[in-house]
Structures are given as C-alpha cells and as structure tokens.
C-alpha cells in the first residue's frame, strides 16, 4: 500500500456487499492484465483479496480513493454504512455488477417480507431444527459486553438508492474484456471525470443486436425450458419457445449464452430503451404468441414457470414496483 499520493498511481478499492462473490472474481478474470493494472493503480481496500480493515478506510482523507468499485446490493446496515463511508472517501464510485446496479438476484427477496424470510430460514424449512425458536438478534448481551450484528433491512436496495453513484458497470458478472475497457476508459479519462449513473462496459443496444441467430418470424406455439430441448442452431431461441431475455437486455456480453444454445437470462439489466426489463419482455412475448383468442394466449402463458423470477431475475430492485406488495 502506498502512502499519500507520492508515486502518482491511482488508488483503487473494491467492496463486496450483498452478492455471491463472482464480481470479485470477475475483476481477476482480466488475467495477466492485472499486472498492467497494478502498474497504474494501488489497491487501498479490497477485503476479499487483501487484509484491509474498515478502520483503515476511516483513516483515509476524504476523496483519497480514486476509483471505488462497489459490488453487491445493499441488504443490511453494515453494507449501507460502508457504502456511505466509501462514497465519502472516493472521488469516483462505480456500482460494479448487476447486484449493485439493479439489485441482481438478491433483490428477488423483495418478493417476500423480512418476516417471511426469517420464518423460512430459521423455522419452517424442512432441514431446520430450531426448537428454541432462536433468531438472530441485533444486540446480544454477553459477559464481555453487548455483541452487535448488522440489522437486515426490509428490502434489498441498489447502491444508487443509498448514495450518489458516478458510473454503473452492469453484468452478472461483468465480462472481463468489458471491465478492462471500462478501467482503461476511466484511467485515460475517455469518460467524463465524474458523472451521474452513466453505464460503462456495455452498449445501449440489446443482446439481439449482438446475437448471430436468425429470426424466421414464426410465432411461439409452446414454451419450453432449456433442459427440455436441444435448440436448433442459428434460429432465434425465443421463436423456438425458450424465454430468451435478449430483446429486453442490454448488450455488452457478446451474446455469450445464446451462442452456447442457452437463452439469455437478462444479466446486463434493461436495455437503453426501457427502465423496467420485465415489462419490456411482457410486451415482446405478447406480440410473439401464436394465439387468436385470449383463452389460447392463457393456455400458452400457463406453460411459463415462474414468470416473475424469469422476467425480473436480475432487476427486481430496479423495476417500477421494486418488489411484491
């Protein structure tokens, strides 16, 4: 770790909040280029990879960190506190990965209340034995003083729900080449020094734009799930009845999944033309159904398993309704 700004290197931080850890790994996925990265930047906080404490960050002067990558959604009071701390200590704060940008998969928890989640986790799930009905408490008295753990919030929030964010780097996880491009763009000031939620490491177009498959303008006759069929190559997966989120999803990944016969799961979030990925897909699917009556449409739609979890798999916290009632 460098002291002060003497060596002219940029100072970089990475934090892991409510996410799976894939984002931390995806930053290492840039491979040998990480050696170039440490030529131009010093890591000053990265709990996953190096031994830094929150206390170290508190002791930095305000704006000490040049680029802070915050991955993961905000789920509890610790993550919010660190988000505010890192915002204060960072010149540029980047929401890294889909959880920080749109809530990601953790935000599907917004379909249940905190009480329901606690009940399932600590009492009613078949593998749980908890005769004393123990639940985590924020404060637990002990002979050595009160022990505190972070408070879990009612909802999963995006980073931008808590603090102002300069850049959004979507993807689950962001693809290594896009990450490297974004880092270079930031380092060479190819993007404005400070900006309000500009998406980097992606384009404004949809995954369909990068997809090599061909549309035959054939309507959907039945819905299938990926494990049920071996899709025909070179033909649009959506037209084959697989729910491919491509039309409603931002590109940047290079259509990796569709090239491997897997329908797009929508991990780069909503495309440039919409804010609500799920409803964009409702419109698309509706236009593609082979149905002349509402009953026929109903029969087709009933074949879809878990529409909410499919259409909003990564963006529940960014959708208009943010979660269930």
């Amino acid at each position, binding site marked *: 770790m460098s002291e002060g700004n003497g060596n002219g290197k940029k100072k970089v931080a990475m934090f892991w909040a409510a996410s799976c850890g894939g984002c931390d790994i995806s930053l290492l996925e840039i491979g040998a280029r990480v050696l170039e990265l440490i030529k131009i930047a010093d890591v000053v906080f990265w709990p996953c990879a190096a031994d830094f*404490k*929150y*206390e170290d960050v508190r002791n930095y002067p305000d704006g000490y960190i040049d680029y802070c990558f915050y991955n993961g959604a905000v789920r509890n*009071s*610790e993550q*919010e*506190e660190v988000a*505010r701390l890192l915002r204060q200590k960072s010149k540029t704060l980047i929401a890294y990965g889909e959880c920080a940008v749109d809530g990601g998969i953790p935000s599907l928890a917004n*379909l249940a209340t905190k009480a329901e989640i606690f009940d399932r986790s600590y009492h009613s799930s078949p593998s749980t034995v908890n005769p004393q009905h123990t639940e985590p408490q*924020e404060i637990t008295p002990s002979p050595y003083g009160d022990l*505190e*753990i*972070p*408070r879990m*919030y*009612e*909802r999963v*929030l995006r980073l931008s*729900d*808590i*603090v102002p964010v300069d850049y959004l780097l979507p993807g689950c996880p962001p693809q290594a080449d896009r990450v490297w491009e974004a880092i270079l763009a930031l380092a060479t000031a190819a993007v404005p020094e400070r900006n309000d939620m500009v998406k980097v490491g992606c384009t404004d177009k949809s995954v369909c734009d990068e997809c090599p498959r061909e549309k035959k303008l054939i309507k959907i006759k039945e819905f299938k799930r990926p494990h049920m069929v071996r899709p025909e190559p070179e033909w649009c997966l959506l037209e084959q009845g697989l729910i491919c989120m491509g039309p409603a999803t931002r590109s940047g990944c290079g259509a990796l999944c569709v090239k491997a016969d897997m329908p797009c799961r929508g991990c780069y979030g909503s495309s440039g*033309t*919409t*804010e*609500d990925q*799920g*409803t*964009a897909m*409702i*419109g698309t*699917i*509706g*236009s593609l*159904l082979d*149905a*002349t*009556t*509402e009953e026929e*449409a*109903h029969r*087709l*739609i*009933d074949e*879809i398993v878990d*529409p*909410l979890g499919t*259409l909003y798999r990564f963006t529940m*916290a960014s*959708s*208009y*309704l*943010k*979660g*269930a*009632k």
Partner: protein
Amino acid sequence: MASVQTHTTAPAATAAKAWEPRIIGFLCYWCSYTGADMAGTARMKYPANVDIIKFMCSGRMDPELIMQAYAKGADAVMVLGCHIGDCHYMVGNHKTMARMPLIRRVLGDLGIEPERFRHEWVSAAEGAKFAELVAEVTEQVRKLGPLNWPQKMHDSGVGHGMDLKPWGEV
C-alpha cells in the same frame, strides 16, 4: 420514454384527506375514447375517479406504463380498446389481448389484487358500458382500499436511504 403523471403530492399529505380511489384508464383513440366521449355528451353519470390517458391504439400501450401507474400511486388501472375485428390498425388489439394473460399473472405474483386491473373492449357506441365499467371498478377498488405503493416504498426506505444506525465502531 413515455411516462405517466399522477400524484406528485407527498404521501403524508394524501393520507390526511379522505381517500378516493384513483384509477388510470388507458383508452384507445378510435373506439374506447370515443365511447367515453359519448358517455360525456349523453350526460351519463359515472364516478369521477378515472383519469383517462388517450392512446392511438391499445396495442401501443406498453405494459411498462401499467407498472408505472401503480408505482406512482394509482389504485387501479383500466385498459380499454376496440372489440376484436374493429381495430383501426387491423391487429393492434390482438397484441393487447395476447399480452393480458402474462400481465395478469405477473401482477398477481406481485400481490396486486385482480380487481385492480381491468381490461375490456369498449366500442365507440358503448358509452353506457364505459360508464358502468368505471362505476364497477371504482366500487371494487373502494372495497379493497388504497394500494398506496409510494407510501409503501417510502416506508421500506426505497429511494430515500435508511436511517443510518451505526453498528459499532470497530
């Protein structure tokens, strides 16, 4: 991007007044809006709880706007279009029709009661049907009570940050 303008009042201020159901009606220009117009010119009486937004075609109505309406404080949403076979653009309302089952399923999974979303065909001659529909939906929503999504979001901290409770200096 198109956007729905509804209540801009702070949630606390709306709670103080007596609550009235607020319904957003997306009406197609050629049939349903003309039907609503007919209800007006024929001086039919119906509750003043519906805010009508005119669209060229119900098929043009992006499902996004339905979500936006609830998110901004609507208690119910109505989508009205031409009868099948009467669409000015031939097949616009076929698209509306095909989208309805998935919209209903998603709204149901989100915990929004089915009575809060109504899709019907109303022709230019059916002013009376329009008036009856508005009365019916208003009554159903009145029984259900307010949806009040903005207040719910406010209470759960979305978009406002949380009260920061330090969990201990390390």
